[in-house]
């Protein structure tokens, strides 16, 4: 039973599910179920020789590097390289980022609720790899049920003496910028949940000035499986350049929205079919979430879901968010609503973002709901005044979305500019923007 996952890989092309194995149905939130399915945490016991221990930890990093695992939080940085750079320092700290800032993403929440021990395994293994003596797991402070479940999981492991490194749960405010890496580190250091301006980078000096490893919880879950089954197993899914599987959150005009585990390289259209397929004709697909990009459906349908593949199509994959936009909706109106939300969610630290995002939101709303010949050009002028001028990537996400909207919905933009709002603005919200007011 414990090797069911790896055996399946050998027996033909049945590589899925991996992270979500045993999750559908009853879920495997309990420690017993988790160990039943996957076996115990493969953590080597520490020996008398510190040097031998460090050498063995370095071998784990080698395996991760060979596996080609990349970060699943949106940036896609090679995990092995990150582990190596933090391990090079002394007194490291591990921070698992489960504070899913993107409203359109649900994968981290699913993992933490239904497979918490996989994530906690990953944290322990990461701590072992980088020589950390402390670990933190960041979640939204408003998710009390999630936190309670995690506390139970941590306690069960403590009782069984599984984790050598204690894991502390950290509550992060439910704000978009608060789940940014530097903001989480600042909270742990006792400061406000606001992004900071690098340098120094967190992997050199993060929590308490120590080298800090910050990983998305999904990345750590993959790590937990790689440590058990090896890099070859991980690479048996996906493509040579983009190996493994990932979790995606699919919503919009599909029959079965939800979180799915897919092989990297799967064409976007195939993935949408897995979610039941479109419920009505589509015009565009949003990849990457509120910080992502709109792609016309004709281009997007055949794009292989890898970081590079999506980028080649002019988009970003981000944290695996996919939203199918019906042809009856208005992409400009959706964009205007999202950018207005992002404008409210600034950390309030940097002038160009504080002033630029509301200005951008206003012009987008003007174009979506009013019209005006000069508005598309005005948007194009505003974008470089906002992009890259904040301490974090918050304004860049908004400008990226706005720019992709002007590209993907170019005919609509021209129509709106000349004639005002199209019928699609009455379609009803597709992207669930928190705190959204219907009336403008």
């Amino acid at each position, binding site marked *: 039973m414990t090797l069911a996952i790896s055996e399946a890989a050998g027996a033909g092309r049945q590589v899925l599910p991996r992270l979500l194995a045993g999750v559908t149905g009853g879920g495997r939130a309990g420690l017993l179920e988790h160990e039943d399915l996957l076996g115990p945490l493969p953590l080597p016991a520490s020996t008398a020789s510190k040097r031998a221990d460090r050498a063995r930890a370095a071998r784990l990093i080698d395996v991760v590097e060979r596996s080609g695992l990349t970060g699943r939080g949106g940036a896609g940085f090679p995990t092995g390289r990150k582990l190596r750079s933090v391990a090079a320092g002394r007194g490291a700290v591990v921070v698992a980022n489960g504070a899913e800032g993107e409203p359109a993403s649900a994968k981290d929440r699913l993992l933490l609720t239904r497979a918490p021990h996989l994530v906690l395994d990953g944290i322990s293994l990461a701590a072992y790899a980088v020589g950390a003596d402390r670990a933190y797991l960041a979640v939204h402070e408003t998710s009390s049920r999630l936190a309670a479940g995690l506390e139970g999981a941590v306690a069960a492991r403590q009782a069984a003496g599984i984790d050598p490194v204690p894991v502390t749960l950290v509550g992060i405010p439910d704000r978009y910028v608060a789940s940014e890496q530097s903001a989480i580190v600042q909270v742990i250091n006792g400061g406000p949940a606001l992004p900071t*301006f690098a340098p120094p980078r967190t992997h050199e000096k993060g929590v308490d000035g120590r080298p800090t490893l910050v990983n998305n919880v999904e990345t750590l879950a993959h790590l937990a499986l790689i440590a058990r089954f090896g890099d070859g197993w991980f690479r048996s899914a996906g493509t040579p350049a983009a190996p493994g599987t990932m979790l995606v959150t699919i919503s919009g005009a599909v029959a079965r929205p939800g979180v799915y585990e897919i092989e990297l390289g799967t064409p976007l259209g195939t993935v949408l079919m897995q979610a039941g397929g479109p419920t009505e004709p589509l015009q565009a697909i949003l990849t990457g979430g509120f910080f992502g990009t709109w792609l016309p459906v004709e281009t997007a349908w055949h794009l292989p879901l890898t970081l590079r593949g999506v980028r080649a199509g002019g988009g970003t994959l981000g944290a695996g968010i996919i939203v199918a936009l019906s042809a009856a909706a208005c992409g400009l109106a959706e964009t205007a609503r999202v950018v207005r939300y992002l404008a409210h969610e600034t950390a309030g630290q940097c002038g160009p973002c504080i002033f*630029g995002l509301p200005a951008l939101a206003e012009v987008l709303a003007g174009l979506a709901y009013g019209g005006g010949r000069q508005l598309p050009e005005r948007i194009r002028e505003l974008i470089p005044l906002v992009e890259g001028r904040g301490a974090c990537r918050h304004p860049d996400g908004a400008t990226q979305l706005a720019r992709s909207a002007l590209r993907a919905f170019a005919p609509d933009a021209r129509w709106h500019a000349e004639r005002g709002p199209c019928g699609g603005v009455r379609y009803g919200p597709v992207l669930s923007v928190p705190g959204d007011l219907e009336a403008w």
Partner: protein
Amino acid sequence: MTRRLLVNPILCTGHGVCAELVPELIEMDPWGYPLVSRAELPAELAAHARRAITSCPELALLIDDRPGR
């Protein structure tokens, strides 16, 4: 290794002294904040840049010599 001027956007409160002292590289945006050129800092402007850095009332201007982003 390129050297260029960089503004810390968190510390910057839009005084505008830098734009007066190095207008070749810094302009003000419509909201009063500096638009700093990402081009390499030429040698002939180095003295002006240093003066701008020490004159900033918030110490928000600095020289960035990390490998190019």
